[in-house]
């Protein structure tokens, strides 16, 4: 990993909704527009039918309580009610059934797009974003989106329709009572908005404390073994208790502020109910009175229905206010997802491709089968891959401020072994990162067999370079799968051949299940040196024309390294090899050794030449100068 650029994003991002997020989100619904239209229609049917149901209760009660009930009307009303109910149930099920594949499908598309885009992003994106932040796009943010698509949207439509429908029905029943309801509602909403404001402050505090606790836990669990060695368990536990208690307090505040919302809303709506009942009873008692020429008198049946509506009215509004929070967080999540999708992918305008070639009558032609002979294809021209790598006046900076490499020039002739030595931060790893275009240079050129690497298709460029990285990451899977990672088409024999070459075969056969032993990502079951041997085997099986070994043998003891060297010599034969090593015994037999310091090459030559120069390399070699 690169040390210099590990700037973490702030752990808590403000939930700001960017313009256009909603529109873009709607874009994902487009393929389903017809089905969604059906969903909206069904939701309308369901809501209207259920409102109708409430409305139909009134004539039933009125008829029955009228003193002279009409039986046929009673039955007819009941049947109408049943039809309305059935319609509502059927429509409710239908829209939910249509929504399930849609919401899952949309999310699946979002996830795939997200992951696929993530794969194409340049490495500096990874350098500036923590894994936690990126993971949370796949977990928290898509979850919030799922919640909104699957439940939020239908619920909002239902709630709005209900509010509107009930409002109209209430208005028809009694304008006077409706006015009272509206007044009460206004008060309720004011209360909610005041509370919500207060609670968002508490939630921010909680988020910050949570980030602290999680960060502490993460660091301490990662350093658990050191804690054990220093018997520091009690101190760590004490500190944790403190942070944990801080979190408890802020979390309790946040939870209280959102928790009291429900009883407050619920009971205010009861008060609304009571006031409506009181006024309603008064109106009913007044009989057919008028106010400003409007009839404000109501019957008991009207009051019964109206009271039902009062509850039906405030309920969806309470729901809407609760939905609001989750919608805001879903939109914030969607915004973060879109931010990632808007990141520019790795630039790749190269057209030169890598092909397997064979020679016919002195001319190179493309071959379908593996010939072990490679060539570059530029237009109709075939250029044999020889492994000639040149850096011309290369200047590079990770952050645009500090130049990590300054005007570096060197060449590696085909088949040469070039070693890079120098302190940590001198720019050794950076050079390899530039050759395979993990990062693009700002000034100068890098050529591969005379072709500017920017003209080479990135994937083909990387395929031509076998890299053993400084930190040897193995994947969850068997030993065999891990070695085969270098070349998915490799046969079992080729895998074992590569393992023998890197001297890993011996220890693999001593593992409980040999080549089928499952490795975990953390790789607790292998030593650091063994992991490096596997990483070398992984590159060996890929059989690339050019090799880059970045501290590939740093944890392997020198005796084993000497053993690998025989295999490596075979592997390196005829290939251009770049070796970065700390241990000078590793680089001794290189054709050319480049000594880097502060991004510049200060010495170059063979081992003997450099020793004779009695410069920096000599000092390093004799131990008079510190390497780090």
């Amino acid at each position: 990993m690169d040390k210099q650029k590990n700037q973490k994003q702030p752990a808590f991002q403000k939930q700001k909704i960017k313009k256009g997020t909603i529109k873009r989100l709607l874009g994902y619904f487009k393929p389903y527009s017809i089905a969604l239209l059906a969903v909206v229609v069904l939701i309308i049917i369901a809501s209207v039918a259920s409102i109708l149901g409430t409305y139909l209760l009134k004539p039933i009660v009125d008829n029955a309580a009228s003193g002279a009930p009409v039986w046929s009307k009673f039955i007819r009303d009941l049947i109408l009610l049943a039809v309305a109910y059935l319609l509502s149930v059927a429509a409710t099920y239908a829209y939910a059934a249509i929504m399930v594949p849609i919401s899952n499908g949309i999310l699946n598309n979002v996830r795939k797009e997200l992951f696929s885009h993530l794969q194409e992003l340049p490495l500096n994106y990874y350098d500036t974003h923590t894994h936690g932040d990126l993971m949370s796009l796949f977990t928290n943010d898509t979850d919030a989106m799922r919640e909104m698509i699957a439940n939020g949207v239908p619920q909002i439509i239902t709630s709005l329709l209900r509010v509107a429908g009930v409002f109209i029905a209430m208005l028809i029943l009694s304008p006077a009572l409706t006015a009272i309801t509206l007044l009460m509602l206004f008060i309720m909403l004011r209360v909610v908005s005041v509370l919500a404001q207060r609670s968002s402050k508490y939630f921010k505090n909680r988020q910050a404390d949570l980030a602290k606790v999680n960060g502490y836990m993460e660091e301490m669990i990662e350093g658990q073994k050191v804690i054990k060695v220093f018997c520091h368990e009690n101190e760590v536990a004490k500190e944790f208790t403190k942070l944990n208690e801080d979190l408890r307090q802020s979390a309790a505040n946040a939870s209280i502020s959102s928790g009291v919302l429900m009883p407050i809303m619920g009971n205010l709506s009861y008060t609304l109910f009571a006031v409506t009942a009181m006024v309603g009873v008064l109106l009913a008692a007044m009989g057919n009175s008028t106010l400003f020429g409007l009839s404000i008198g109501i019957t008991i049946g009207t009051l019964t229905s109206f009271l039902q509506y009062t509850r039906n009215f405030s309920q969806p509004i309470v729901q809407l206010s609760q939905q609001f929070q989750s919608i805001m967080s879903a939109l914030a999540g969607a915004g973060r997802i879109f931010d990632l999708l808007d990141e520019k992918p790795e630039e790749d305008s190269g057209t030169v491709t890598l092909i397997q070639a064979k020679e016919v009558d002195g001319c190179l032609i493309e071959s379908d089968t593996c010939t072990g002979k490679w060539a570059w294809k530029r237009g109709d021209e075939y250029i044999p891959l020889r492994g000639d790598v040149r850096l011309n006046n290369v200047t590079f900076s990770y952050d645009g401020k500090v130049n990590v490499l300054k005007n570096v020039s060197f060449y590696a002739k085909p088949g040469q072994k070039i070693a890079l030595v120098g302190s940590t931060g001198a720019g050794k790893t950076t050079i390899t990162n530039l050759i395979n275009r993990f990062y693009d240079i700002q000034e100068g050129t890098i050529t591969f067999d005379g072709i500017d690497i920017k003209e080479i298709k990135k994937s083909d460029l990387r395929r031509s370079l076998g890299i053993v990285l400084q930190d040897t990451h193995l994947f969850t899977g068997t030993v065999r799968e891990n070695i085969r990672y270098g070349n998915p088409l490799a046969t079992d024999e080729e895998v074992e051949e590569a393992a023998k070459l890197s001297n890993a075969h011996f220890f693999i056969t001593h593992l409980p299940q040999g080549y089928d032993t499952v490795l975990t990502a953390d790789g607790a079951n292998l030593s650091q040196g063994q992991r490096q041997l596997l990483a070398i085997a992984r590159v060996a099986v890929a059989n690339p024309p050019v090799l880059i070994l970045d501290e590939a043998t740093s944890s392997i003891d020198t005796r084993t390294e000497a053993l690998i060297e025989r295999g490596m010599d075979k592997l390196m034969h005829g290939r251009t090899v770049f070796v970065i090593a700390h241990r000078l015994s590793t680089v001794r037999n290189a054709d050319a050794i480049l000594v880097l310091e502060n991004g510049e090459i200060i010495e170059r030559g063979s081992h003997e030449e450099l020793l004779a120069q009695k410069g920096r390399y000599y000092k390093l070699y004799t131990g008079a100068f510190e390497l780090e």
Partner: protein
Amino acid sequence: MERDSIFDYDRSKKTTGVIKKLMPCLKGYGRYTVFSIFTIIIEAVFEMLIPLIMKVLIDTGIEEAKAGNYAPVFKYGGIMIALALLSLFFGAISARLAAISSTGFVTGLRSKVFNKIQSFSFSNMDKFSTASLITRLTNDASMIQNAFHISIRIGIRAPVLLIVATILTITINAKLSLIFAFALPVLGVTFALLASIAFPRLKKMLEEYDSMNAGVQENLIGIRVIKAFVSQKREKESFNKKSDRVKDAGIAAESLLILMQPISMLVIYAVMLAVGYFGGTMIMNGAMSAGDFTSFLSYIAQILMSVIMISLTFMQLVLSRASMARVIEVIDEEPYITDDNNDPDLTVKDGSIEFNNVSFAYGEGLNVLCDINLRIEPGETVGIIGGTGSAKTTLVQLIPRLYDVKSGSVKVGGVDVRDYKLKNLRDAVSMVLQKNVLFSGTIEENLRWGKHDATMNEIIEAAKIAQAHDFIMSFPNGYQTDLGQGGVNVSGGQKQRLTIARALLKSPKVLILDDSTSAVDTNTDANIRKALKEKTKDLTTIIIAQRVNSIMEADKIVVLNEGRIADIGKHDELLRRCEIYREVYSSQTREVG
């Protein structure tokens, strides 16, 4: 990864067992929980009383109002509002208490799990991956908190509402309430049926989800390898497969779950219709008043809502079972190494070390160390050298009892390491790990890990021996330099020297350096060894190194080969008689004239 065991519900199938295990986490907040339950019950009762008053309001209030007496309407209306306000008061208090107790609960839970991890030995740590422990402490803990919160809020409230409402409907009209005798069992059986089919599907969905996330995580960690091998396409294919599986499992589970709402609506509506029919006829016959009918209808809605809430709560609980199982797995994990019965006054006398016929294996695996016999005198410097995988690290980890031997014994200061209190042993045996960690904080804070109350002079002294003082002073902030998380602000070699200084501050009797100077240049390396020799006379030093230079002058060099001691001796002796040693030596010195 033990991802298979994560969803091993069966291990904690008994819900009572789960509750019993998690109950202690509520310590200190028990009374909040009890009071919150108490107030929820009060609130629920109030909520039920209000429609009752409303009935009186409509029935008697209207009649009186018709007769010109408006007072009863306002009397009952006033009572209703008072009740609503009281209910609001208790509701707010119960919400507050519930919030306090549920956050208190999760705080206790986190603390219990975290402290449990503190008691883990190395073998326990090897069993769980770091990432999985963190997930358990974060995501799983908050899942459980949600389940707890919902249980005490809705899980208590809904049944109370159900019971009170049922009693009230019976008092209003017992005959009419018989309808519930049909409706509730129908609803219950349907839900139970639905749940029993849906839960396995939900479980499957969560598993797929988990596996997808694990895939993403690994992809992020290995992105450089992925890009270097141009395997993005393979990665995408594998992710798409996993994502599709999540989608399919999600559809399978949700298509069942969406049945819940229409089914409960169907039942509610059927009851409404039945009440409409029977109630209507009763009104016509004069067997029921219109007010009674209205109250009855509102209680029906209440009862059925409660049933739905209960079933949803139940589902939430079952869903959080996976999280509970994962957390309990940590709580239940027994530390492999304990020192409970050891004498706290037994301290390490001197730095002598003795291995007697020691064999060791990780877990149930093959023996990694066999028949190790070794005696080290106090104050000796011992070098250990051997090939990759020859168990050098394993050997020294037995000395501070980071792992326990499989057979044989390890003695420090003449006493078996298993007889010491761990603190006493590890204070005397200081080990610098190969994969070492610095913590966020200043250099001084990090060094103080070795000795909490060290004076500045002691700290500087230790830093000087580790050849760290000079570079520390070259930083603008000296010992106050902030290291950043994981010590990202210092180079590899500097980091190693800091960890050595940290270990030295303990003033140990035994110091173990496990490849701890690999990034340090040979000169500084030699200076560290020289300083150690001069400043710490009685310190037994064990050095694992790749470089022969680092151990050449040791009093004793142990050559390890495939878990056995191949030879022990001084440099010259070994050069003469030990072929492995000769090979190692020559691999590092050839060509040097």
